C-alpha cells in the first residue's frame, strides 16, 4: 500500500525542514503535478519517497522503514540468498558466463589464453527480474500464501510477475511469506538499487561464481527456454497483427 500523505508530509518536514516543495521536486526529478496529485489523493507512491531520499543523500531503504507500514524493513536485515542474487543476473549475462567458462575449461578453445576481463554484470533489475526472483524463493506454495495473506487474486499477482512489475507492498509480502530478507524483492521490482539495499559490491558475481557448471548450464537453459517461449508468442502476435492490417487495415 502506498504511503499515507499525512505521514509523508511529516517525514518530508523532518528530513528537509527548510526546503520548499518546488525545490524538492526539482532536485528529485519529480513532476510537481505528480506529487500534488498523490498528496491530494492521500497516497504517496513509494517511488516518490525513494527519489526524494536519493536527492537528499539519504538511504531510501531506511527512510521507507521509517513509515509504519514498512516498519518491518528495519527489523529484518537478512542478506539475500545466493539463489536470489543469481536471480537478479540478466539472462544474457548468465549465457556469457556459460561461454566464458567453456572457453577457459581445459581443452576449451580459449584454454591457453589468459582469461579476458569478464565484463561487469549489468545492474539489476533485468527484463525478467521479478519472476526470476519469485521463482528463486518459491517452495511451490509461495504464490498461494502471498495471495491469501494480501488478498491479491492469484491471477493479478501472476499478471504482475509476467509484466515484470511488483508493487513494493507485494514485494515485501512475498519476502515475508518466503522467509527471506526484504531487499531482494525491492531490488527485483526496481524500487532500490543493489547498493541501496546494502548488498556488498560483487555479491551477484560471487553467487554466480559459486554455481557449479551443471547448475549454471541448467539455469541458463531454463532462462533461455522461457525467453524462447516469450519471443515465439510475441512473433506469433506480431504475425497476427500484420495479417489484420494486411487484410482489414
Amino acid at each position, binding site marked *: 500500500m502506498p504511503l499515507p500523505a499525512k505521514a509523508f508530509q511529516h517525514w518530508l518536514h523532518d528530513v528537509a525542514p527548510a526546503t520548499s516543495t518546488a525545490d524538492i521536486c526539482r532536485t528529485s526529478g519529480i513532476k510537481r503535478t505528480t506529487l500534488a496529485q498523490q498528496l491530494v489523493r492521500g497516497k504517496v507512491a513509494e517511488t516518490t519517497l525513494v527519489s526524494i531520499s536519493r536527492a537528499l543523500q539519504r538511504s531510501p531503504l531506511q527512510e521507507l522503514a521509517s513509515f509504519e507500514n514498512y516498519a518491518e524493513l528495519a527489523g529484518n536485515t537478512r542478506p539475500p540468498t545466493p539463489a536470489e542474487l543469481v536471480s537478479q543476473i*540478466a*539472462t*544474457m549475462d548468465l549465457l556469457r558466463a556459460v561461454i566464458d567458462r567453456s572457453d577457459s575449461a581445459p581443452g576449451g578453445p580459449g584454454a591457453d589464453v589468459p582469461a579476458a576481463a569478464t565484463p561487469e554484470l*549489468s545492474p539489476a533489475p*533485468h*527484463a525478467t527480474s521479478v519472476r526470476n526472483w519469485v521463482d528463486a524463493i518459491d517452495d511451490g506454495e509461495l504464490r498461494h500464501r502471498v495471495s491469501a495473506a494480501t488478498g491479491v487474486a492469484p491471477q493479478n499477482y501472476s499478471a504482475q510477475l509476467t509484466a515484470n512489475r511488483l508493487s513494493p507492498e507485494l514485494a515485501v509480502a512475498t519476502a515475508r511469506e518466503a522467509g527471506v530478507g526484504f531487499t531482494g524483492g525491492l531490488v527485483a521490482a526496481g524500487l532500490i538499487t543493489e547498493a541501496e539495499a546494502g548488498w556488498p559490491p560483487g555479491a551477484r558475481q560471487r553467487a554466480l561464481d559459486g554455481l557449479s557448471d551443471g547448475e549454471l548450464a541448467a539455469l541458463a537453459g531454463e532462462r533461455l527456454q522461457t*525467453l524462447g517461449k*516469450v*519471443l515465439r508468442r*510475441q512473433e506469433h*502476435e*506480431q504475425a*497476427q*497483427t*500484420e*495479417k*489484420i*492490417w*494486411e*487484410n*482489414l*487495415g
Partner: protein
Amino acid sequence: MAILEWTTLIVCGVVLLVRVPDAIQGRNRIVFGILLLATLCSFLSVPGPYEAIDRLLGGWNATDLIRRYLIFATVLLVGLRVTTGLAAVRGHRLVAGTTGRWALGLSCLAVAVTFFLMDTRGSSAGLLGVSDSGGRNAGLVPYYAAAGRTYPAFVSLFLMPPLLATVRSRLPRLVRIGALLMLIGALCAALSVPASLAPDAWDLAQYVVNYAAVLGYVLGLALFWFSGLMAQRPRSPRAALHGHGLHGHGLHRNGR
C-alpha cells in the same frame, strides 16, 4: 428527422474519405470497396435520397430491393476479409464454401419472392408506406425485412468467435478495440433478424439495432486502419529482445 440514418451515412462517408489516399495507392482496395458499398447503402436508407432515386427507377421501390442486394455484397466481402484477416479458417470455409453460397442464394431468393408478392408501388424508404397500406402487404413487409437480414446475420454469427478471440487476445490495444466494435456490429446484425419480427412496440430497438450493426462494422474497420497508421509512425523500439540485450524488430507495418 432520420438521425441515425444521417449519422450512419456521415460516419461511412468520413471513413470512406480517409481511406481514399490508400485506395489510390492500391492498398487494400477491397476494404475501400466495402466502405463504398456501405456508404451507398446508408445513402439509400435516408428517406430523401431514397425517394428521389426510386422515382427515377419507376417508383415501385426497386431501390430497396437493390439496396438489400448491395448489403449482401458488402456483407460477403466483410465476411471474406475478416475471416482471412483474423485467420479464422473454419469461418472462412463457412462463408466462402458451399454453406455460405447456399445461405446467400436462399436469402436472395427469399428477398426476391417476398418483394414480388407485395404490391410495392409508391416510393417509401424501408417500405414503411407499403407496410401502412395494410392487407397482405402489411403482413409481408416484416418477412421481407427479416429475409434481408438473414444473410448478414448468418455471416455475423461466424465472425463472432474469431472477433471475440481477438478482443481477448494480447494484440495491440487499438486492434482489440476495433475487433470489439466489429463484435458489437456482428451481435447487432444477428439480433436484427428476431428484431424485425418483433411486435411494433419494439420499433425503436429494431431501428437502433440495424444502424448499430453498420456503425460497429464500419468503425471497427476504421480502427483497424487507424491502428496500422499509428504503428507505422516511427517510435522508440520496444521489442522483447532489446530488454534482453539482443536486437529485435518492433511492430511495424509492411507494404507501405
